[in-house]
């Protein structure tokens, strides 16, 4: 088991390195000079001398491989550099904003799993009935509505028409816990709806599949009653793929909450990334992308390990 985790971690580290390198190269090989971009205001061209000075200061005149080496050295020592735009420490900015994004995702995952697994299981047990049709259609509809549409519509309903929740913004939890939670509710609910759809569909399909398995028939042949069969044999086996999907979806969300953060003015990591990409702020972009991909890869690792814990067959399969 430890070996399994160790090897998976090595693979994960390799993937992170690939991603960081690819992003570094992409940003350096594309047209557009960041120094020029920073110094120009509106349509007025920047002073060439000032641009040259700034390029020197930012180390852009060094050969690419030297920039890459010093960049990687920085990454390894935990220093992601300073923003081109305002000189702020990138790692501090990330440390400030990442928890806010994670908060939304975790809240959404909790809501979605708490509601989705029971609903999906219920739909599977009542497969082809009216309740199943209703739940399945709800899931399809939720899955088909982009988050910014859901976000805009809930703002229209809850903030504009009913006026019971704020339309967006952010207050630190330590300042005003109630207001913080109120502000969290709509973005987390919006993300949860999309996640809920995935979890309902996955649990339904998974439970339906497990119900056809021979070992469920064996459990019935033993004389077990419904409750234990459902708990010990059906749901336990059906949860394995659901957990996998949940983990993968959460990984996708780490970089995918851009729209929700934009719609609700939530100052998380994704919004930060958009503005950084816009300004060609290399240290910021590379730092954020690296953080996201580390989290993404790490989450995949966690999913695999949790799966291995749940499913004794896995350690055998990989050996």
């Amino acid at each position: 088991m430890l070996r399994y985790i160790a090897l998976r971690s090595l693979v994960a580290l390799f993937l992170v390195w690939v991603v960081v390198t690819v992003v570094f190269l992409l940003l350096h090989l594309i047209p557009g000079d960041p120094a020029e971009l920073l110094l120009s205001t509106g349509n007025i061209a920047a002073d060439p001398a000032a641009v040259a000075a700034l390029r020197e200061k930012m180390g852009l005149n060094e050969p690419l491989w030297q920039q890459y080496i010093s960049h990687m050295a920085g990454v390894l020592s935990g220093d992601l550099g300073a923003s081109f735009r305002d000189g702020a420490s990138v790692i501090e900015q990330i440390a400030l904003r990442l928890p806010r994004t994670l908060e939304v995702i975790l809240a959404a995952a909790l809501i979605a799993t708490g509601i989705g697994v029971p609903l999906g299981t219920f739909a599977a047990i009542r497969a082809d009935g009216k309740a199943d049709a209703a739940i399945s259609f709800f899931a399809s509809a939720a899955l088909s509505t982009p988050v910014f549409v859901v976000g805009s519509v809930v703002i229209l309903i809850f903030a504009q028409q009913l006026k019971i929740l704020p339309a967006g913004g952010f207050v630190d939890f330590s300042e005003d816990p109630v207001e913080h939670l109120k502000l969290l509710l709509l973005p987390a609910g919006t993300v949860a709806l999309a996640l809920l759809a995935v979890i309902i569909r996955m649990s339904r399909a998974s439970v339906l599949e497990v119900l056809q398995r021979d070992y469920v028939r064996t459990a019935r042949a033993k004389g077990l009653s419904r409750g234990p069969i459902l708990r010990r044999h059906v749901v336990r086996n059906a949860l394995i793929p659901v957990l996998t999907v949940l983990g993968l979806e959460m990984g996708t969300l780490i970089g995918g909450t851009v729209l929700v953060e934009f719609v609700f003015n939530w100052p998380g990591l994704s919004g930060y990334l958009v503005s950084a990409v816009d300004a060609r702020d290399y240290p910021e972009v590379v730092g954020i992308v690296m953080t996201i991909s580390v989290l993404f890869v790490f989450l995949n690792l966690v999913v695999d390990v949790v799966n291995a814990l749940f499913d004794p067959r896995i350690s055998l399969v990989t050996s």
Partner: protein
Amino acid sequence: MSRATRRLILPGAIAAVIVALVLLAPVLPLDDVRGMDIPHRFAPPSAAHWLGQDEFGRDVLARLIWGGRASLFIAFGSALAAAVIGTTLGLLGGYFRGVVELLTVRAAEIILCLPPLLLALLVVTILGAGTWPLILALTILYTPNYARVVYAATQQVRGLDFVTAQRAMGTHPLVILIRTILPNVLPPLLVQASLVVASAMVIESGLSFLGLGVVPPTPSWGLMIRAARGAMEVAPLLLVWPSLALAGTILTFNLLCDRLQSALDPRSVTAGGALWLRPRARSASKPATRPAASEEAPLLEIEGLSIAVNDLELVRRVTLSVRPGETMALVGESGSGKTLTGLALTGLLPDTLRVTGGTALYTPREGAPIDLAQLDEEAFRALRGTEISMVFQDAAAALNPVLRIGDQVAEAIRVHHALDGAAMQARVVELLRHVGIPDPERRARAYPHELSGGQRQRAMIAVAIANNPRLLIADEPTTALDPTIQAQILQLFAQLKRDTPGMGMIFVTHDLAVVAEIADRVTVMYAGEVVEEGPVTEVFARPRHPYTAALIASVPEGGAERLVAIPGAVPSPHKMPSGCRFAPRCTHAKPVCTQSAPRRSHPSDTRLTRCFRWEEVT
């Protein structure tokens, strides 16, 4: 047309209408999408402008249709491009493996290390906003998805015998890829394609919404929503139209994809859920009545049992009896209904099947005989394990993969006996030892996959006998095993018979030689009916039904130069011959055989046959 195909019509038709609308946009009498009409900004729906006018007074309906054109063009364009590239990579990687796999599929998968929206954002920011950069971004994004799906399907198909047959025939690998593999990976590919179209629309609209996608003044649904958000207080409807259009279109493609999947791959749809899980009101079972008690009461007496799916009879008027301590072999080819008969006795028939007639009187340890044909799930549960128990064919599938062997045995004991930890542990180990599992203390903690096939079947038997059942039904328990292991398991069954003299056993099998080894009496089934019954030695020595005789003669034992083959094949339940069901394959058939079904005849007190001509031909 099947139900799955019918369900395709609605989303298919809507998708067709949507595609037709955006294709016909240039010829439809629509207003100019850029024609501003500032005095009438935010005008509500009217005869001239069915959906009203936007913040510049432009016609919303026209912008909606042209916006759809842009969205769908980008979605379909990138889905198609990604499909072509991804399928090629997946096919090559899946078929050739090795280095090719590394260069194609694995390389493409690096893209999957980035969250999709993030990647699209990167590409679009680098190349600038606009339709073509969007298509490029989405193509890069979805290529690995296709590559993965096609790769997995190719790997699956490539191992199939018909592909090996092509290789053995000397067909060129590229011809095999195109002629044999591609058509067989098309179903998952089609499903993936409609999924990608829907997903691409989500990302395209999201980027346009952020101002990074389609460039104004080209209309786009994402842009329209973005603009409408600013005017939410003045004209909330402006937000509703594009939202509906966007969500509706994506929903249509998602539904199309779901239903396409179930139409293309019927196996993936497990119909019906599980009826046994739903509490059902059911009339109390009628008390069973037994004809005047015979000197030796049978443990089980089945009379005229029929099982049907809808109105199709799969098992017809089966008669069977088992006395205490007796082993009855139920033998027949596939489709003979032998397994269904066994399942019906424990109430474990698949949901679509039900008992449609007859009685199955079972004599429990205490109390009056029970008619198993009348029981509901609740009543069966009380009997299972302790009165009637089952051993299934495929122990690897019949044991729960995530529970330890010991726990699965303990679970069976716990249903009928309250035992505490240590006592339970001792009982489990004792049972495992009893069925011949070496080192039972340690094996009790093993998972099913850690045991060999023979040991798994032994564990399965331990589960079945955990509560000392009076009737053990074994459904092809040795079929999947190797000869030396099969011999061990047969020996175990023989030992169980000796150790529990009162236990009756129904041994379902297709193997006549196994019947000869294990059973006291044999019931031969053909096409859902019992054709012959009697003591094994007598039946094998002198079969009194042409089918039994032919079956024995077709076993390649003994020195016959040429085997006796039964011509033709077992009839399908849809096309059962009238009269005797074996008549079309029977060498002794006469016109009388096809006119009516033969009645039961008794060549002796202990024998039964169902043939018009048994006296002449056997």
